């Protein structure tokens, strides 16, 4: 085991896969010479050379298009879109082209590509550089969607994403880049489509993603200490494929389901999970399913405002405390 930061785990994951398979190539804005604006891809150009690690112009359509063209002709590209907000700039490529090529060609084309992007709030960058848009990707058939919360998961799930034969949109959380965690030595490959139960409790089940995971864990500690409410906390990790088995099993155990989502209110990823649970666990629910989300507003920039918008530990605690009876 070694302690890595979340950002170091990104570079380590890419390096692991580029080392293993010469078909893996990497492109994006400022990713090579500068090591990435978030310093998440430091050292890759030096290690793998300018043929396989390339800086691009500010051309999101071209970046994703090139990744798609390369993927359909034998390479395994990793493309970076600097801020997940910019997925909107190349959304045609992602949603109309990449997601659908295999289906429309009846399987003639395989697109083993990974789109990595920095998602989420906390850096005070304002509404166009702070969004959580993993729910956009979740809603398009043909895209796999991953959002890790720890350095170990970053490396392991990135490796799994690169090795997956289908398009994967890999949402790193910019607010977590500096966080640290233990990462297994040697080759580390995780599995897409698996959620992790991080904490077992008997009273409520809390499902969270990415930066909301550490907040949910902290809230669970406080609820135990202050209210004697014992919470199960699940890190979803993978929205598509979705580990519904684990999530539903843990929901049935407590009868109470909560989601903690950084997406704005409408159509956040938790809405889908809540809907599945309401349909498939209805007769095991001991109370309403409650979603704890960002309100349906663009994100404000000022630090106090941003912190007051996205679900905080205090808001998670207060919501569960108020409704868990």
């Amino acid at each position, binding site marked *: 085991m070694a302690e890595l930061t979340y950002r170091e785990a990104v570079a380590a994951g890419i390096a692991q896969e580029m080392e293993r398979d010469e078909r893996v190539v990497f492109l994006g804005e400022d990713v090579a010479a500068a090591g990435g604006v978030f310093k998440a891809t430091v050292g890759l150009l030096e290690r793998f050379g300018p043929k396989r690690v390339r800086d691009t112009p500010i051309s999101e359509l071209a970046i994703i298009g090139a990744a798609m063209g390369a993927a359909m002709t034998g390479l395994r590209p990793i493309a970076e879109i600097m801020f997940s907000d910019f997925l909107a700039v190349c959304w045609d490529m992602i949603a109309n082209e990449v997601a659908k090529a295999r289906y429309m060609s009846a399987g003639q084309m395989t697109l083993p590509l990974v789109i990595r992007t920095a998602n989420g709030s906390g850096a005070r960058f304002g509404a166009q550089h702070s969004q959580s848009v993993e729910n956009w990707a979740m809603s398009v058939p043909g895209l796999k969607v991953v959002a890790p919360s720890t350095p170990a998961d970053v490396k392991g799930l990135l490796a799994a994403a690169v090795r997956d034969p289908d398009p994967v949109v890999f949402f790193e959380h910019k607010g977590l880049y500096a966080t640290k965690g233990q990462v297994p030595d040697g080759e580390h490959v995780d599995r897409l489509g698996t959620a992790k139960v991080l904490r077992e409790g008997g009273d409520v089940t809390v499902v969270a993603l990415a930066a909301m995971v550490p907040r949910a864990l902290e809230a669970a500690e406080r609820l135990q200490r202050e209210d004697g409410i014992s919470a199960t906390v699940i890190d979803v990790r993978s929205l598509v494929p979705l580990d519904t088995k684990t999530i539903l099993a843990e929901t049935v155990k407590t*009868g109470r389901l909560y989601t903690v989502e950084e997406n704005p209110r409408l159509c956040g990823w938790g809405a889908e999970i809540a809907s599945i649970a309401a349909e498939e666990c209805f007769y*095991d629910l*001991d109370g309403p399913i409650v979603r704890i989300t960002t309100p349906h507003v663009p994100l404000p920039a000022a630090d106090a405002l941003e912190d007051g918008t996205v679900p905080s530990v205090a808001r998670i605690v207060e919501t569960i405390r108020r409704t868990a009876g």
Partner: protein
Amino acid sequence: MDVVMPQLGETVKEGTVTVWHKKVGERVEANELLFEVNTDKVETEVPAPVSGVLAAILVAEGGTVQVGTTLAVIEEDGKPRAAPARDAPLSPVVRRLLAENGLDASAVTGTGAGGRITRDDVLAHVERSKTGGKPQGDERLPLSKVRKRTAEQMALSWRTIPHVLQAVEVDFHAVDAARLPRALTYLPFVAFAVCRALPEFPALNASLDGDALVLHRRINLGIAVDLGGEGLIVPVVKDAGEKSLPELARAIHSVSEKARSGRLAPDDVTEATYTLSNSGRFGTLLTAPIINPPQVAILSTDAVTRKPVAQGETVAIHPVGVLAQSFDHRALDGAYSAAYLRKLKQILEERDWAADLGRGP
């Protein structure tokens, strides 16, 4: 406002809710009787702390909880809460479990927020019902709280204390002369005699505490009272040694009455140093009583019957009864106990009882 389990005695740690006098949704006035609590066989009535509506009962009758636990919630006048809990809709899992078990919601106690029936409430109810099933033919009577407590104490005593029984036969002729005109029973006389004898035999008015014998200065006489099939209770007459015979008689009468009518306070049953067990009215010859630890002895008085006794060279008919003492052989020996008993006999047979009684009742 939360209604909590009160601290009913300095040494009391938990209590059992025995009766709710109000239903959820009923109005209750401040100081009106709300519920009853049993602590160590003593029943206490508890009034409501405020006026309002009983919004929720969180501990049902029969529930035993620690002091301080919330038992119920009163929605105070002027401080309204949300919809009354009992009417709260049943959750899907609760409805399913009720249906699967053939239960009605009214049968289940709700411990959720505001008294809501939770999934665990139904599951607990089902579990309790299972263990309460009757086998064919036999009738199963659950033991009362008091009997259970008595049983625990008896077993503990019998397990830990090496009991030795000694008895003397006492001629109550002198006692009769004093008691009959005043319609007293034998018990106060025996008690008075015990109080006169114990100071000469302090090891009997003592507690065994590990490897030490604690000699008590005060004589707190426990008077064992039979609760008519519901077990025994031993109210205590504190400082019995300082009471005159009439005072002692009144005190004994008082605690016995309180015991029988269930009006003892928790402090009424603590700190006894020596116990009298009066089986007289049952007509028995002799009883080997069980010591109440941490005491080291207990005296039983059985039936007093008219028998022929030798008086000089002639035969007279006198009231005769047996006093039997069980003592803890770890704390003292037979000779000591026997001497005490002889002293008791002597006091009972030779004391000037008229003087102890004085004039008047």
